Every structure is written in C-alpha cells, then in structure tokens.
C-alpha cells in the first residue's frame, strides 16, 4: 500500500491526483476489498485524500506446456482440456499501478 502512495506522489509531482488506476490479476493473490480498505486508510489526511482508486481486474490465462492450448482459467488448479496441469501463466498475476489521472494545480 505504501508502494501505491509513494509511486502516485512521485509520478504526480505538484499535480493533484484524481484517480489511481491499478491492474490486479485474478491470480495475483490480492483481495481487492483489502486494497480498497488499505488505500482509504493510508491516504486519509494526505494529499491523496479524496483520490479514487480504479481497480481493473485482469483475467487469468494459461498456456499448456503439453499441447500449447491457451485458455482463460478461474483458479490455479484448473487443468487443460488435454489433461495436463503443466501450464505457464500468460496473464493474471499482475499487481501494477497502471497510471494516474491528475489535475494541474495552477
């Protein structure tokens, strides 16, 4: 959470941060509700107070090492249609600050 606040303040410079957009993969292991709660607590009475947190969920997708088939998955343990469980994660582990919307303070 400190990472979000630090990065937002650093990248915004003197501008006011309006929105912080975060990408969270479905396999990232992070509870979105906990992020929201932590954000509200950590930004209270700071220059980020009032900024909104825009959380974009990224679908989880895996590629089978046995047959090469790629598919969206819901969990770590959903196997490939060919029967293999040996798969690489293509997407879904993101935990990234994408960008900010800022308002220049004149």
């Amino acid at each position, binding site marked *: 959470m400190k990472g979000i606040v630090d*990065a937002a303040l650093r990248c915004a410079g003197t501008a006011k941060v309006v929105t912080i957009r975060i990408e969270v993969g479905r396999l990232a292991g992070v509870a979105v509700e906990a992020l929201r709660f932590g954000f509200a607590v950590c930004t209270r009475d700071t220059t980020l107070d*009032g900024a*909104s947190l825009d959380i974009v969920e990224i679908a989880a997708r895996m590629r089978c090492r046995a047959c090469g088939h790629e598919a969206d998955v819901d969990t770590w*343990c959903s196997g490939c249609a060919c029967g293999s469980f040996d798969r690489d994660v293509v997407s879904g582990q993101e935990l990234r600050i994408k960008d900010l919307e800022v308002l220049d303070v004149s």
Partner: protein
Amino acid sequence: MCRECGCGRATEHHHAGDEHHPHDHGRPVRRVAVEENLLANNDRLAGEVRHRLDHEGIAAFNLIGSPGSGKTTLLEQTIRSLGTGVAISVLEGDQATDRDAQRIAASGCRVVQINTGAGCHLDASMVDRGLDLLQPPPRSLLFVENVGNLVCPALFDVGERAKVVVMSVTEGEDKPLKYPHVFRAASAMVLTKADLIPHLAVDVGECIANARRINPHLVVFLVAALRGDGLDEWCAWLRLHLS
C-alpha cells in the same frame, strides 16, 4: 466536489469516455503513466539479497507453512542430520518471542530472530537486515523460517534460492487446493509428521496429487522428522544446492 475528477464544481458535469475528462471549467485532467509493480521495492531489494547470497555461494531456502506445521522441528532435525560438514545458519521469523531462535541455537548453529509484531510475513528488507546481523558464512545453507502463515509469505520474494512449503499430514489433503499460491510459488513441499498417518483419515496420495495440480514440478518429501523418516532424501536435495 466532482467525485470523478476532483474539481471544485458542486454540480454534476460531463466526463466523456477516454477523452481525459474534458471539462467546462478549463482545467484538463491529464493521464500520467506509471507502469510500476506494486511490489517493485521489495522485488528490487530481494534481487540484491539474492545477488549477495549467490556471490558467496549461500543457498537460501524460504520455509513457508502454517503455525504448527513442524517447520522448526524439521529445521532442528535437518541441522542434526546434515551434521557438522555443512555450515548452516537460520533466520527465524515470528510475530513475537525468540523461542524458535533458542531452539535453533540449541541445535548449535547461527540464528537471528526477526519479530514482525503485527506483520504476517517476512519481506526482503527484514531479511536484508537480518543477514547483516547473521553474517552467514560463504558456501553454506541458509534457512529463512517465515512467519507461520500459508497465505501472505507466498507473495514476497526475500531473495531465496527456493521456497519450500512445509505442511503436516494433519492439515488435510485439500490444503493445496485451498491455499494454492504458496504451492505454485514453491519448488518443494515437505509433508511432515508422516508417522501420524496411521492414526489419520488423510489421503496423502491425494494431497500430493492436489499439490501437483497446482504445480506439477513440485518436489515432494514425506518426512517424520522426530523419527528420522525421509530426512535423508530431503537433506540430499538440500546438498544439491551447495555445489
């Protein structure tokens, strides 16, 4: 205040799609790219720790498991089993007390206790500071016993060579399915308290199969640390990392 852009207008006004919220009050909202991993600071420091350990030939293992899974007993018996031929040091993570550090010290190896207070996992900065105190010798094994927790430690790289998930057979065969992240992140799983299997309804084969549905490359050791079963295989795997 407009909730969408933060401007001072009390009334609702139009924000169109991707046009960076054109406003009728003359102050455009602009988008600033960040593209930064939330755990970037931790991962950067973990990389430095890994580099430092690799440079000195120190193989570090991050032991992750529930409270009471048998991590400390496994370590005590591992230290005994590896004998004096291998230099071993230990970073102990717990919310409170230095009980585990005392147990490890009694086994005769270097140990530093890290207390996290309210924290539920070790991160790279804690391990970095712990290593400054511990000063593990070159060409040695280092064990980081994480805070007892099957969830959060899975997400935090501390610069280890490998994560090892420690799970006791009493925890039940479904734990890999219920707490998949750590089983995916780990290179090896040690199933402890194997001597209790005759007294339990647990299906160990099913437990291992579940873990390998998450991570087919997981190396599995079935160990009864107090009785010594399985320690030779586990210790042989550890020695592989010393070469």
